[in-house]
């Protein structure tokens, strides 16, 4: 039986995705599906697909600076289409200001800085998904 809820990770760096997934697996074990995409376009397709499969997306974790569609544009679109989806941004320190500015507009639940601290990461995710 497929798991009905998923966490989607978006980053242009595959290693980040792998690391992130490992962190999630380590903490939430098999509780969620962990889906990943290398850019915003792929992520939007993925989300649409998952929604079509009636899989409930509880969280989107995304990088801020990405080639093509940027983090804020991507999150804006997600927010417009699926306002119930919670979002988190993982970003380098340099972009924090830009993220904070856009936070209200894109209904951002939280910001995680790179490099992340595992405990902090998990704590933030748990806060957002309210487990």
């Amino acid at each position: 039986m497929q798991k009905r809820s998923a966490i989607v990770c978006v980053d242009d760096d595959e290693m980040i995705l792998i690391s992130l997934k490992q962190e999630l697996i380590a903490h939430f074990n098999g509780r969620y599906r962990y889906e990943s995409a290398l850019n915003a376009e792929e992520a939007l397709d993925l989300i649409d697909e998952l929604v079509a499969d009636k899989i409930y997306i509880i969280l989107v974790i995304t990088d801020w600076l990405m080639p093509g569609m940027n983090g804020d544009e991507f999150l804006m679109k997600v927010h417009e289409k699926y306002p119930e989806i919670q979002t988190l941004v993982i970003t380098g320190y340099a972009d924090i200001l830009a993220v904070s500015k856009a936070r209200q507009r894109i209904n951002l639940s939280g910001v995680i800085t790179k490099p992340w601290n595992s405990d902090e990461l998990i704590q933030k995710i748990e806060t957002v998904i309210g487990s």
Partner: protein
Amino acid sequence: MAQKAKNRFFIKRNGLAQKLSVMVFLIGILIYIPSIIFGAVTNLKRINTELTDYKRGVEMRVQNAFEPAIWNYDIESLRKLITLELNNENLKSIRVSTEKLSLIWLTSEKGLVVDETVAPEGKYIEKKVVPVFRMDEKERVIAYATIWYDNFPVREQYFKQLIYDFLIVGAILFAISAAVTISSYIRLVRPLEVIRNSIIEAGKSASAGKKKLGKASFARAFAEIKDMATDMEDMFEGIEEANRKIRENEAQFRAFFNQAGVGVVQVVAQSGDLVLANQRYCEIVGYSVEELKNMTYADITHKDDVKEQRKLTEKLICGELEKYRLEKRYTHKNGRLVWADVTVTRLWETGESPTYILTIIQDITDRKMAEEKIIKLNNELEEKVAERTWDLENANHELEAAIEDLKSAQAQLINTEKMAVLGRLVAGIAHELNTPLGIINSAGGTIERILRKELDNVIEFCCRAHDDEYRTYLSLVHNSAEQQDNAYKRILRRTYYKAVEEKGIRTDEEIIEKLVDIGYKGEKDEFIELVSNPKNFTAIQAAYSIAILHKSVGMIRVSTEKASQVILALKTYSHKDTNKTPVSYDVIKDIETVLTLYHNQMKYGIEIIREYENVPNVICFPDKLHQIWVNIINNALHAMNYKGTLKIRISNDNERVKVSISNNGPPIPEDIIDKIFEPFFTTKMLGEGTGLGLDIVKRLVEEIEGDINVETNQDETTFNVWLKT
């Protein structure tokens, strides 16, 4: 008075008119008499010639025409011929005779021809004997013709002409003379009647009581008186004119002397006594004319100037000088000092004994005072200038100090700019480092977790595993080395889930996830076979753990490499070059270092085009070279808003290396293009830039004797830097 002047005028004119008319008459005579004489002489000559011609004609005719008649003794023919000749008034008588007898003798007597026997006589009768020759025989005289000419009619004609000429000329001259006289009378003499009458009256009254003068004697006297009066009038007039001129001159001189703007004084040359001073002189020295008459020039001259003037005056007296000029001081009557410009001229000619000296003085006290004032002001001014100069020097020192401060401030600013660039870089580099660090950290955590929780399971599996299980494990681990596309994985995962559902196999979802994760991509049937056997699960678990371990280690290695690259770039950038002399350096390597540092800022929106030729090393200060590229690239990125194409061309250009960095952002506006290299010029928002970037770049380029320029157009903006090799 006016009347008198008028009369005098007319008298004078009358005398002149008379002379004029006489002159006209005389000149007329002088011209006409010679002309008459000349005319008469010419006339006489002409008449004589005519007469001679006539006589020769008569003789020719006598010789030729009379010959046949004489030869034939044809007296009747001769008579006719002679009668014909005697018609001329100049011929008196002709006699033709042979040697023996007289043939015929005819005379013209009051227009009639008569036979004659007596030779005519008279003052004007001229006798001529003409021989008549036989035809063609010049030697044979057949007869003699005696001709008496009468010259009287010609003479008479001549004198008549002369008299006639005289009469005409006389009449003409008389007419002219009369005309002049009448004209004189009408225009000149008539007005003089007034005077004549008055003189007559005067004469009458003068001789009253005395014997009356006869009318004739009075007329004589009148003429004399008239002449005398004329002469006297002329004389009086001359004297009066001279007097008037003298009076005028004197008045003019007096006015000039007294009202002259300059002081004039006449001084006795030897004694120096003042003889006559004008008003202005008195004003200048303060003494009256009378007071001055008892003084010498030395009395009123300032004592310090007496000696000099005395010396000059002596030279004047002994003739060394004709005049001199000096500026001296007078002592005014009230004791005041008066400055004067003095011109002294002697009044005697060279060779004469000294008489008087004329001294002309001009009050120049005001000018002297002004001069003194100017000198005083000048001195004050000099003092002030000195003071100001001192102030300026002080200010200059202060300014120099300020410039020193500014220089250090500038150095500080340049440093600040470098730090600002560094700061921006650091932000990028932080990300550049944080990413690999985060991955390393995360991978480390993963490895730790696997080692702690899963390694035992893996070892246990390896120990217990059957061959086929172990083979499965090995093939899974082997597959995991291959990198797979994320999207492909997703499709694969969906396929596998579908297959499991279709087959109704009860399997752990985690197993499928893990298989996909480690890169398993077996066919549906193979996959079903694999997952339908629960025994394989441990092999899959173990393979997953090892694959993740591998992956994590690989990630750590890659990340470490990346991080060390960044650190190397940073180290190169921040390397403090202590060299004072430029060194040979690889410009391509340098630019690549900078590009590494900017990798993070450029990787999402910037396409980098590199066109590098093989170029030699450039001569530069390597640490400063980075700053050039960092600034230009930083500006380029900013201009493109971090989206666009950054083209870097490195080429050989005329034994130099040309580095062209182009961006396809908007062009630099024309109005600021000249200012972009100026310090503190920035288009960035407050706080974003110091405005020193390009100024520093320019300095750095110039420091290593390079050149920089900028080209901008709609398509791209290019900074060209030429560097020495």
